[in-house]
């Protein structure tokens, strides 16, 4: 299959009068597995639908490969889309579902038969060809939808939260399967999800979106370890985001005393709850406010006299004996503190 690049140039999108996408620019290299990540309502699905041609752009241009496809209808674009609820055609059996795109291309019947059988084998559903979509399980439907999208050999595969409806176990399996498919056929994948773990484990690049704009675009490792804004930090699971007056002044023995609410100080910082060490101490400056069990771990909320609330995460065995209102002393390694660039 041929892989193609995607270029979004100055895309704007309004629904009635609400702006959903705002001067959006993005270049996706051919063969990349890019994830559009963000909370619901950030415009990621709209963007994907615009690449597919299912949604008009209000202004701006979309290129697939060298071609400007801005006003090309979806059936003439070199893309295939996969939906969260799979959208299998309920009145066609599995084989007809997979072969539908080939039938449209007026390909010879024997050729269609051969290709669909190939795909049925690839997705491990060889004996299921004559079943109807409602007669197979969610995970199987998922694989049929994937085969149906890929059998037409698109240059770009668009995936709209395709694993959202699966249970946790199946999800993990499908994640690695999708990754394998991507490296096998090498076409461009554009993947939409609100699940940061899924984004981290699958993509070659992540575009974190917020309110119709790019918040941060990085490789997964960088997004996880070096978020640039408090939004990115929060989305990547940093539950402690604060600010300090001055970057130079960092004195680790005094660190928790200089923390301020994130909106007040000049320099925003963040750190992960599992990087904070703590000890019970009668004169400890923090008091335990709440404690919640998370299966093998406890999440503990502590607060000090300045009303700074810090989240801690620790092993069950270590924090079992900690009670509400206990006094704690906190320490943290300076390497675990991340300075946010965007203020």
């Amino acid at each position: 299959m041929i892989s193609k690049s995607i270029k979004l140039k100055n895309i704007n999108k309004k629904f009635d009068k609400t702006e959903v996408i705002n001067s959006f620019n993005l270049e996706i290299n051919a063969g990349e597995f890019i994830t559009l990540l963000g909370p619901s309502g950030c415009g990621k699905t709209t963007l994907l639908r615009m690449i597919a041609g299912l949604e008009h752009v209000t202004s701006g241009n979309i290129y697939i490969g060298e071609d400007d496809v801005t006003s090309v209808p979806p059936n003439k674009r070199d893309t295939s889309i996969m939906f969260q609820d799979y959208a299998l055609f309920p009145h066609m059996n599995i084989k007809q579902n997979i072969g539908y795109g080939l039938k449209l291309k007026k390909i010879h019947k024997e050729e269609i038969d051969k290709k669909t059988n190939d795909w049925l084998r690839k997705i491990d559903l060889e004996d299921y060809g004559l079943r109807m979509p409602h007669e197979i399980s969610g995970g199987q439907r998922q694989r049929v939808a994937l085969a149906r999208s890929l059998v037409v050999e698109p240059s770009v595969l668009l995936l709209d939260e395709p694993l959202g409806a699966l249970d946790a176990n199946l999800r993990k399996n499908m994640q690695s399967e999708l990754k394998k498919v991507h490296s096998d056929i090498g076409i461009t994948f554009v993947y939409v999800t609100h699940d940061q773990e899924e984004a981290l484990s699958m993509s070659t690049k992540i575009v974190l979106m917020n309110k119709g704009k790019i918040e941060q675009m990085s490789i997964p490792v960088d997004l996880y370890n070096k978020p640039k804004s408090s939004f990115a930090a929060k989305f990547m699971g940093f539950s402690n985001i604060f600010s300090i007056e001055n970057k130079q002044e960092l004195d680790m023995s005094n660190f928790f005393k200089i923390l301020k609410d994130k909106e007040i100080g000049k320099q925003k910082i963040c750190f992960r709850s599992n990087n904070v060490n703590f000890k019970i101490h009668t004169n400890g400056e923090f008091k335990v406010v709440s404690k919640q069990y998370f299966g093998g771990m406890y999440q503990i909320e502590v607060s000090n006299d300045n009303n700074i609330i810090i989240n801690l995460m620790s092993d069950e065995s270590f924090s079992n004996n900690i009670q509400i209102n206990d006094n704690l002393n906190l320490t943290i390694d300076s390497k675990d503190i991340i300075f946010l660039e965007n203020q």
Partner: protein
Amino acid sequence: MKSFSLLNNFLYVLFTIIVSLIYLPILVMIVFSFNSSKYQIMPFRNFTTSWYQRVLTDSQYIEGLTNSLIVSISVSFFATLLAFFCAYSLVNSNFKGKSFLNIFFLTPLVVPLILIGISLRFYLTSRGYEPSLFLVAIGQSIFVMPLAILNLSNRMSQIPKNLEEAAWSLGSSRLRSMFEIILPSCKFSLIATFILTFTFAFDEFIIAYFLTNFSITLPIKIWTSLVTGFDPAINAIGTIVFLTSLTLGLISQILFLKK
């Protein structure tokens, strides 16, 4: 609990009364269609099927029945087909004034039939059309169309939007996806709509009365027979029509449930 069950019994009685009010006259008609007496009064004389034999051999009734069948089948075919496209565009497009237009699509249901009949007669005859069964078919199509649109758009709005979108992305044109994705998903509703519009057109009297002259439909024939004095054969034909309508109505209801 006691007062609750009392209320329950009361509702049950009420329900029975209402159902009886609807079906009792029809039941009387069915009973008398087998009565050998010429007069529609008790007591019941002898059991006979002679009224049925008379109806089925009377050329005027047969002609009315044939005309009615031809007109009703054309009406339901035409209305269902057109309603499919109307419903598709109502469900799938978003244009200015759509909800306003929606109201207008449905008004023929509440406009008195006599108005549709009179205005169509004046309009069509002024355009040089002679009253005929063809005009009846046009008038009745207008009458049943809202019903057909309502039924089909109801079903279509239940079909997930992304089924068609998936088809488009696989290379299907809009027209093709309409026939290959939407049409099969509406299969049962289409048949149900066809049957329902058929029964409505088949029973319709007022529009037909205004729009035809010499070739008459069955309801018109029944009416003229009643005007010229009571003919017990009416009971027989009424029973046939009622049982057919009831069966068709039930079939269409079941099909709607099947989607």
